[in-house]
């Protein structure tokens, strides 16, 4: 339980936590370095393996740092 409690330390009511933002930026950094290493876009799995973070966490973090309403979705009125 201690391990999980430690993992749950973030008690912030704000939607995007510090740690989520960190994960998202790290994922983008690693993508860039893998692009130069392989000369191609890495898959999300390759990024997850490199970061040692479950791919779903990366997906969630990347989604969270996006603009809440994208250009493509003039739907919320």
């Amino acid at each position, binding site marked *: 339980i201690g391990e999980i409690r430690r993992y749950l330390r973030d008690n912030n009511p704000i939607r995007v936590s510090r740690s989520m933002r960190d994960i998202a930026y790290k994922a983008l950094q690693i993508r860039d370095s893998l692009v130069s290493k392989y000369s191609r876009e890495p898959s999300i799995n390759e990024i*997850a393996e490199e970061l040692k973070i479950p791919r779903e966490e990366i997906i969630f973090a990347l989604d969270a740092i996006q603009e809440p309403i994208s250009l493509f979705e003039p*739907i919320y009125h």
Partner: protein
Amino acid sequence: MSTQAPTNQVKLSVLSLSENVGFARLSAAAFASQAELTINEIEEIKVAVSEAVSNAVIHGYGKLNQKQDNYVEIVMTLYQDRIDFVISDYGRGIADVEAARQPSYSSDPERMGLGFVFMESFMDSLAVVSTLGQGTTVTMSKKFTAKTSH
């Protein structure tokens, strides 16, 4: 469509509410992350799935929105080299699918009419089947290169 066996499948059934567009979008990204897809390709899937689900919510059910049993269904199936996304609603349907798929066509003057164009350009295939008064089913496929052992 090939006849190979699916390697994974999940089905979502979400109430027709705009909140669930974001939910479906994120769930689609999570499912797609099993495949060998790049961040960009996953973003394309997110846009295409959002467009299809928001069409179901806005156009399919529209003012019928409040009815308790208006569900949008999203079936996601992983094959060895592609993912299929099937989005269905049981709403009002589309009278002329060909016309609806044209760029800039919208039945709502305030909208851009680019949803189907995005789905088509971001995915590898798009099929729209609709019956007036019965609903609409959008089937989209995204291909990828199967993982090679390394």
